């Protein structure tokens, strides 16, 4: 159905320098035909939201392995909402306990992926969300 490419911002918020996962995911999403922008390390939530807006992305994917997910996900989500990106998916992955995943999903964050996830699962999730959102058709 969707003609245009899905645009994804892969971002590393905070001071955490573990970018192996972020880079593997970014490369896999690109190889799956998506347009991927990778922010690089040490981004503030404000910077991430601004980049998402400017790049007009469909999806923001955060990678957090520092334990700061309960601070950073809600902050990015709030900034996205404030900037009129209610219809943009916020997803991500990292070392995130399952209770925290549930709590974040209740706040409106999408699916979050832990260690052992295949890149295929992430690609499938984002593609399905994009189909269902109808964003591809509008554009």
């Amino acid at each position, binding site marked *: 159905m969707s003609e245009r490419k899905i645009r994804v911002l892969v971002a590393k918020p905070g001071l955490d320098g*573990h970018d192996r996962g972020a880079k593997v995911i970014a490369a896999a999403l690109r190889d799956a035909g998506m347009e991927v922008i990778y922010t690089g390390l040490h981004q503030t939530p404000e910077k991430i939201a601004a980049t998402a807006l400017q790049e007009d992305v469909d999806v923001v994917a955060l990678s957090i392995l520092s334990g700061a997910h309960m601070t950073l996900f809600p902050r990015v989500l709030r900034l996205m909402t404030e900037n009129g990106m209610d219809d943009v998916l916020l997803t991500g992955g990292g070392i995130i306990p399952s209770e925290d995943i549930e709590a974040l999903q209740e706040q409106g964050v999408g699916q979050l992926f832990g260690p052992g996830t295949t890149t295929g699962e992430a690609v499938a999730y984002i593609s399905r969300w994009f189909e269902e959102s109808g964003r591809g058709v509008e554009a």
Partner: protein
Amino acid sequence: MSHVLDREAAEALQAEVERRRAELAELEARLSGWTAAYEATSKRDDTDFTTVSGRVIAPLYTPADTREDEYLRDIGLPGEYPFTRGPYQTMYRTRLWTMRLFSGFATAEETNERYKFLLERGQTGLSVAFDFPTLMGYDSDDPMSEGEVGKCGVAISSLADMETLFDGIPLDRVSVSMTINGPAIMLYCFLLATAEKQGVPFERVRGTIQNDILKEYMAQHAWIYPPEPALKIITDIFEWSAEHAPRFNTISISGYHIREAGATAGQELAYTLKNGFTYVERGIARGLDVDEFAPRLSFFWDVHNDFFEEIAKFRAGRRIWARHMREVYGAQKPESWRLRTHAQTAGVTLTAQQPYNNVARVAYQGLAAVLGGTQSLHTNALDETLALPTEHAVRIALRTQQILAYETGVANTIDPLAGSYFVESLTDQLEDEAEAIFAEIDELGGVVPGIETGYFQGRIARSARRFQDELEAGSRVVVGVNAFEEADEDHGVEILRIDESAGETQRRRLAELRSRRNAEEVTRALADLADAARNDQNLLPPMLDAVRAYATLGEIRVALEDVYGRFKEPISF
């Protein structure tokens, strides 16, 4: 000696040579028959018989695969050049490896209590884990630090926090290892000034700072300044410490993070040693005598899943370091040639699926580190892929080492795998691979241009991607992840949770500190430090003065950032 004896000896030697030659010829003939039979037989289809680094492994190794007649040149004896068999003469017969597990969390008070608990139970050294803000040179009350204070380690923002961390812990008796890189010089000064307050002179302070900035650009990414000023600061530390703190290990040149980020065993080995050579070159260029600072350099290897390749990596690393230090850099002292190392089991191999299986992974990896001849070892806890470890999980990790040391008997003899056709061949292969990578780096103009152009980062990311592709294609089996999965899994492992109170405590404490200290003195000390940086002077003395005036970590970082700028990472994936 008579001519008769000489002739007899010569004849005997000739006969021996001929016998060996005939034996080798027969071996080769029989090997080709064996190979034909092997080729004709069906093989398992669940593996391609490569290491996790992609190295092709032969089905059989024989004397035909080794440089056996070069025993003294390539292998030798432990404690002797080229140190293939170990850095010390008597190894674990005299002293077991140090079982060093690193820890730190929340505030300085809480970590201080944990340290005292560990010391009371017989631990003799401490290993400090810092939180992300500290690792990046940010104060706990910086907006960038929000949500991260005390999460992955202890928060240290000033000399006051360091004094609390080591309250009641004498710094001349307890050796302190600090995993710190970008702001290593600041934390080193905090430690030295704390010793000073305890009445311990600098020359009696023992410990280690990781201080390996090159691998930060390549892999771990806790950098601050660009490579050139960062290397200048490290050389300042070498220079100042050789004179004032000679018992302190000024750097731990680390392959760990390079490997964890995705590098192969050969890349870990080559990049790390090349970083080491770069530090040596900077020291020599400063006019330091290589034998003055080289004995204080130490290493830190990852110990990953492929058992024999890892053992060979430790052995090859010692040989390469010794050869280069003696032959390329002209070091005269054996202490400058010998590579001493810490090792840690590979965090990246732990699985969140069926996490109790991680105990077995850690045990095999720990065994490889010991057979490789490590000087100290950190064994990971089974739950570290889920969160920071609980005390219970850490205890199992420590007990794993004790079982290795006292029950398995592997520490009874030195370098027990020497002479294995396979292990010696792998050791030679890793040495050759490292030399080839050194040549490639030299082509780029060295390590710094390689970092600036993203060469290392790109290579590492490519290796990480290859592994992930193999995993997803099923050609690389990871138990519990892509094979032998449990449906409906509830791992049942307790998770350690760190609350947000450390951040609040730290913010309050920093506000008190800022109001209590002499602001003028702080401003002046920071200005002096920036001047020293502009004039290219050794930064240790003005840094110590700033620290004594209770300038904070973040203030010192910013003062130098104004002079040096910040590193900008080349982005690629």
